[in-house]
């Protein structure tokens, strides 16, 4: 009798949980929120013209690397454009990292590494320091260390002692020394290596581990979830929430959670392009910066949302790809400055996006709330 009662009670709980999950998912489906409020910074409003290579958020400040120097925005206003005349090591700025403890700003340029501290620049080049090469693609702060991704390997600068270490094919498992990006985790640091896959460095035990394309061929992907999809890796992002690293390549997107690999191509996902310049992940969000738009992927719901300007109208196009492959397109009155996306960073729930033609600031709004302001011409698209 008691057993039957317990079973009945269990069924009731299951029903309640099921109904709750259904209700929340329906609510989420009916009231999604999208990045529909975009503010763009281009040459039309005083921003340097051309590509924005990188963007880094530092509280209410935003640093943007361009082909014409480093731009500082504060509370959404352009405060200053730093150039080589101000002391910056190079004109083309590829990466920026802020040391939260000291406030120092580290800048990777095509011309060396710069540190901006106390209103002054100090530069490090191949000739004046232990920097491996003057083409600096990535910088990242890890405690007292600065990690630098260069075209001739990885540097580690001990900012307390000023000593440099270099890691390349001579002392670490680099198939190629050309390093593009860095992502710092609590236990490991991950490196995107062009032609060499992903490398991780274990901080406690000081060892390197390579993750490379298991088929070993540039011209094919043998199996869908074979391992890393390709060795030409453009960036890597460690997500501490899901304990997963994501790697972007010019041949699709990969993730690895320590047990399983998952790969994504345009033909099997909502990715708008296999040519991906950068990836960033946090929580249930994975952002892919592709040459045909900015994609937000939720691995839990297997849903993709791609943002880009509509080539015909110039207005915003938001393309939603559901797990079954069906697509829905909605429009927004504002959109990204360009479809070619190079980088992004988060500011709370807002995002800052580096594009080929300016910097974009996106704010998320519930779709239902702004339906009158934005386009309400949502339509379902076939697969």
């Amino acid at each position: 009798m008691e057993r039957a009662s317990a079973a009945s009670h269990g069924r009731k709980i299951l029903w309640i949980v099921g109904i709750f999950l259904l209700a929340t998912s329906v609510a989420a489906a009916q009231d999604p929120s999208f990045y529909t409020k975009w503010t763009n910074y281009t040459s039309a409003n005083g921003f340097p013209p051309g590509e924005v290579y990188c963007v880094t958020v530092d509280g209410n400040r935003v640093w943007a690397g361009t082909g014409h120097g480093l731009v500082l925005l504060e509370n959404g206003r352009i405060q200053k454009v730093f150039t080589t005349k101000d002391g910056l090591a190079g004109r083309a700025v590829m990466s920026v990292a802020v040391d939260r403890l000291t406030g120092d700003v580290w800048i990777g340029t095509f011309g060396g590494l710069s540190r901006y501290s106390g209103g002054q620049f100090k530069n490090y080049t191949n000739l004046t320091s232990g920097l491996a090469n003057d083409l600096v693609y990535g910088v990242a702060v890890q405690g007292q260390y600065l990690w630098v991704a260069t075209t001739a390997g990885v540097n580690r600068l001990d900012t307390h002692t000023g000593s440099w270490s270099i890691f390349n094919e001579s002392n670490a498992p680099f198939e190629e020394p050309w390093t593009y990006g860095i992502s710092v985790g609590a236990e490991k640091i991950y490196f995107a290596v062009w032609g060499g896959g992903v490398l991780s460095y274990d901080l406690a035990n000081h060892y390197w581990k390579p993750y490379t394309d298991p088929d070993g061929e540039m011209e094919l992907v043998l199996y869908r979830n074979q391992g890393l999809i390709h060795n030409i890796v453009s960036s890597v992002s460690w997500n501490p929430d899901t304990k997963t690293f994501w790697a972007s390549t010019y041949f699709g997107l990969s993730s690895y959670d320590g047990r399983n690999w998952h790969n994504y191509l345009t033909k099997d996902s909502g990715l708008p392009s296999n040519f991906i310049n950068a990836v960033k992940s946090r929580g249930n969000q994975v952002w892919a910066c592709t040459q045909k738009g900015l994609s937000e992927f939720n691995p839990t719901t297997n849903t993709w949302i791609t943002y880009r300007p509509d080539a015909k109208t110039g207005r915003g196009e938001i393309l939603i790809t559901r797990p079954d492959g069906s697509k829905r397109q909605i429009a927004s009155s504002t959109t990204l400055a360009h479809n070619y996306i190079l980088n992004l960073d988060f500011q709370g729930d807002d995002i800052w996006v580096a594009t080929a033609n300016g910097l974009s600031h996106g704010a998320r709004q519930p779709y239902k709330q702004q339906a009158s302001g934005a386009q309400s011409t949502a339509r379902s698209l076939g697969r």
Partner: protein
Amino acid sequence: MKGRNVVVLKIRNGAAVLIVALACLQTLPARAQSAPAPTPAKQAPTAIPYANMPPAAVPFGRYRKPYQDWFVDSSTLEYYGAARERPDGDLAALKTINIGFLGPLDANNYDSPYGIAMLHGSQMAVDDANAHGGYHGKPFALKVHDDLPLWGASSMAIVNMVYDDHDWAMLGSVDSASTHIELRATLKLELPIMDTATNDPTVTQTRIPWLMHNFPDDRQQGYALADYVFNQRHLKRVGILQVNNRYGRAGKDVFFETARRIGHQPLVEVWYAPDATDFSAQLETLKASGIDGLVIWGDAAQAGLVLKQMRAMAMQQPVFASSRACYPEVLKIAGPAAEGLVMVSAIDPTRMDPEWQQFRQRFLARFHTEPDAYAAYAYDGMNLLIASIQKAGLNRGTIMDALRQYEMKRYTGVSGTAFFDYTLNNIAPVTFAKIQNGQFVYWPEQRTDWHGKPVSFLR
């Protein structure tokens, strides 16, 4: 109309499919002198396997169809960036139309003979264009940068070309590491690159649309040599001797993998230092292995020494070599020991067509030396760049577009007829050379269907 049957081989899922396509070979008029921008020749058959890969050499080809094949359709080099939207250059404000050059020029650089030839070929093309009025009356100017032997030292060259020299495009380099560095930098800086000398096939395997490559790469040389050695000469126990630098390592890999896939895994591979002169240790290893043929991936001078020392050790096996061995120096050093050596050649310098002969005579008169493959491909590559600038105007994005119009099309220049695939890589058949009675004898590659029957392809 010139016409002929072109047999195209395609393999996937373990089954070889022969597709016979009738192709009209309408080649471009030769551009020995700079002339109005050419229109790329009519599109060739599209059912060409990537890199003209022999069926037997397709990775995993016997086992399964890959989940994804790259480089086999027109989406390979898609570009959706903003370069075309940039303002065009102001012709009135320019004194010259600058084109960058990066090559090994310092005499201490191991690769400088190739770099200097490449510079001379480039200079001739620029001077020819200027003799025909330059670009709307403004002369083209070559902005020369030395590709220094110290690894990575030349990495800033492309930055200087874009920001200081204000180049519209660049040509270079020989060293594949340097070329890779320029290639990755140009993805950010967006400067069209014409690569006329690198052998490394991975340079065109990146999906970066800013680079075009016309020199026969290691894949083309490796496939041709493997077919010749194993299918036409029927050797079975081959050894490999390679120079220990990026050129030797990358080139050897293609030949080795192709040989392995067709069931003739090389018995032994040994290497030598780029400055080696004594090869006795390597040759003892090769001799002890019982090889029936030797493939050398290295330069002419050392190939000559290897042959001399090999014959002195009573090793009479046939020897084959990559294109950098195909220089008179190999014969000069080896003497009679070079007899029978078969090499891949990037060009056939005995061609009698007026384009080549005129170029050869003008080059000889100006530089007092015979033009080699590096000079010829640089001349053609610079002509392609100049023609693209003439056609597209002073906008790097549209110049890149003009270069991309050569995808799956032919171009005939002084080096011969190139065919550019979807990666903008030249995959035309190579030339072979043999030392016979103390002379270099050349013939066009005759590839087999890997079952002994000859096939014609892309010729």
